[in-house]
């Protein structure tokens, strides 16, 4: 499994890194940490590139390298990664892999588990390209309050997306797993099972009935999921909720859940113009949300 963690400023990225590495370690996944630098206007892109080359030559390094170095040290201090003793460098190495993408090898540091990537440009475009080119299964990104970005992330990134909103390392989290009869929901169940098992988390499985003909199917899926988790030795409860799906899930999640749900099966055009339940939940909830694809 490949996991992509996108980071920005240092203060805000600690929690994203922390939860991101917990997810990554649950799957023993290969992890890429990407810093996406500011989008440069086409007028100045060559000028900026010349300046950055010049800074690298003088060991002043382009923006983002120090943040990646900080991220690496943070993960090491939290024992999420172990440093390999094999390869060391006397200087930072920035390998220009393709347009707007650079792989960073830090001075004197090396871990096989982590790839450090520097990208420049519009964030959705860069993450989409990173996911497509490197087949990442989950993209993890900090919350913020940008609802438009949440919408675009879920809509356009071709991987599951974990938005780390209002996360605290001190809080005891449970997984809130809304289930239904979509493909995305099956994927969410898989991810939740692995993550809960690995981090010994309690799972609250829910399904929301909306007085539709599919209600019986949903009840069966709920029972099946409960059985699956119990057989795997994961503590869980299964609850049937009624009413507005978005409202009930957001209420139930509070601020001490990690919501894991499947992407909407609606067609992309409807989702783009009218949104979807997962997009609304991501925007409205006050806790981390994973939308599985």
């Amino acid at each position, binding site marked *: 499994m490949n996991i992509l963690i996108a980071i920005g400023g240092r203060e805000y990225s600690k929690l994203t890194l922390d939860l991101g590495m917990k997810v990554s370690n649950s799957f023993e996944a290969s992890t890429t940490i990407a810093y996406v630098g500011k989008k440069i206007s086409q007028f100045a892109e060559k000028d900026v590139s010349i*300046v950055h080359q010049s800074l690298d030559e003088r060991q002043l390094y382009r923006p983002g390298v120090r943040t990646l170095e900080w991220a690496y040290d943070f993960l090491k201090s939290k024992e999420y990664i172990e440093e390999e003793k094999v390869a060391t460098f006397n200087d930072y190495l920035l390998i220009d892999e393709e347009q707007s993408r650079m792989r960073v090898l830090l001075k004197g540091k090396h871990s096989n588990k982590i790839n450090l990537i520097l990208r420049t440009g519009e964030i959705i475009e860069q993450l989409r390209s990173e996911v497509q080119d490197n087949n990442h299964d989950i993209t993890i990104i900090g919350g913020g309050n940008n609802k438009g970005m949440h919408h675009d992330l879920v809509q356009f990134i071709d991987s599951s997306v974990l938005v780390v909103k209002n996360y605290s390392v001190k809080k005891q989290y449970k997984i809130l797993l809304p289930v239904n009869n979509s493909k995305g929901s099956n994927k969410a169940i898989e991810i939740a099972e692995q993550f809960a098992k690995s981090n010994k988390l309690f799972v609250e499985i829910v399904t929301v009935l909306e007085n539709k003909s599919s209600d019986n199917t949903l009840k069966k899926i709920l029972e099946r999921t409960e059985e699956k988790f119990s057989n795997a030795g994961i503590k869980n409860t299964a609850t049937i909720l009624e009413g507005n799906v978005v409202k009930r899930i957001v209420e139930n999640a509070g601020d001490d859940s990690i919501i894991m749900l499947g992407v909407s099966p609606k*067609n992309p055009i409807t989702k783009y113009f009218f949104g979807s339940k997962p997009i609304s939940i991501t925007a409205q909830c006050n806790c981390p949300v994973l939308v599985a694809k």
Partner: protein
Amino acid sequence: MQDYYKIVSSSILYWFSQKKWFVFSIIFALIFISLPTPIGLTVPAYHSLIILFMVFILVTSEPIPFPAIALLTLVLQVLLGVAPADVIASSFMNDAVLFVMGSLMFAIAIVHQGLDIRLAKIIIAIFGKSKRLFLAGLMVVSAILSSFLGEHTIIAIMLPIGLAIIKNVDSSTLDGKNAILLVLFSIGYGTIIGSIGTPSGGARNVIMINYLQEFTNIQIDYWDWIKYAYPILMIQLVVAYFVLKFAFPTSLDNVRVQGYKRSIAKSNSATNIKHLFSCLIIGLIITSWFLFNQELGLGIISLCGVLIFMICGMVPWEVINKNTNWGVILLFAATISLGFQINETGAASWLVEKFNELTSSFPEDSSFSWSFMAILTGLTSNFFTSSATTSLLGPMAIELQPNDISFGMSAAIASGFSFLTVISCPTAMIIYSTGLVSIKIFFRVGLLMFSSSILILYLVSKFYWVTL
């Protein structure tokens, strides 16, 4: 089948979300074309204004690459009957375009020589007695050099010096943060202010010289421009010093000027010779701009500089080719061509007429139209970049008062006041790309600087230019 449909519709949606401004600009253009031509405008003139509107949308939102915008501008001028293909082709290349090309290449050749360390030593030797004096020196030297060699060249040389001296400053304290901003803004404002000083300071200056010559037969040489612009530059530097001092109060405690001096003390003979030779070439080119700009054109002279660097083996073609922004060169060529057609078709005169009709209720004072044009070009350049602004609004500025040189000159100079946004010029974008300056801070300090610059320009044009 359903998955296939989802993949295709998702790809189309993504394309739309990225290119929506391109789609909107096409829709706007189609709507305008279907409307009746406004009274007083010919069809080609009307169409040239529609293309101008499209270019504004496309350049500010960047949904497609610049070379594509340039090609679209050219193609549309022919397809919409603005002018025949031969006329468009001949207006595509002139000395201003050669200057854009030459100055971009010349900048790459100069930066490739690694002159920043040499320059740092000189600045420290002259201004190194105190940290504040050093920063003032950094700003003044940036301004003077940028006035001759262009802001994109000088910011690339000066920024490593600035970043080196703030390397150890703690950005988590307010004092440290202000110190970092003060250093970066001193360099940034120095280079931005400097770029108005001479014709070679920025492509917009050369574009305006070309327009004045073509549309009004007024010839402005290198010296003339300096006489007009340098006093503004000097007053702006003094104002900028105090604006920055007021905006970023700091003790400059961890700014290490002497430490940096020690770290760059060593240099070998080969580097010394290379630097000496580079300086000779730069000196030769600047002298030629002064002496032969009328005969040879600024563009050809800057290309000569690139040629000498390449023939002497001081910069490989691969480096120039890789780092030259060919898209910008094409875009300037296309917008200059459009600017010419806006004037030739009478669209510029029509816009000026409409402007005069709108302002007929105001007192008949040229100060009003002057202020309007200066503020409009200044503001537009902050969202559209300065050279593109001059190439498109320049003809209208001249048309407002064809016999008064101050309108054209003010439009070109005001479009160099790139203090408000980070997209306005390469310097602003480079400073922003360090990740140490936010858009908000840039705007806040820039607003003060922009307003005072417009005021300075007004006072100088009103009381000093009339004496020339």
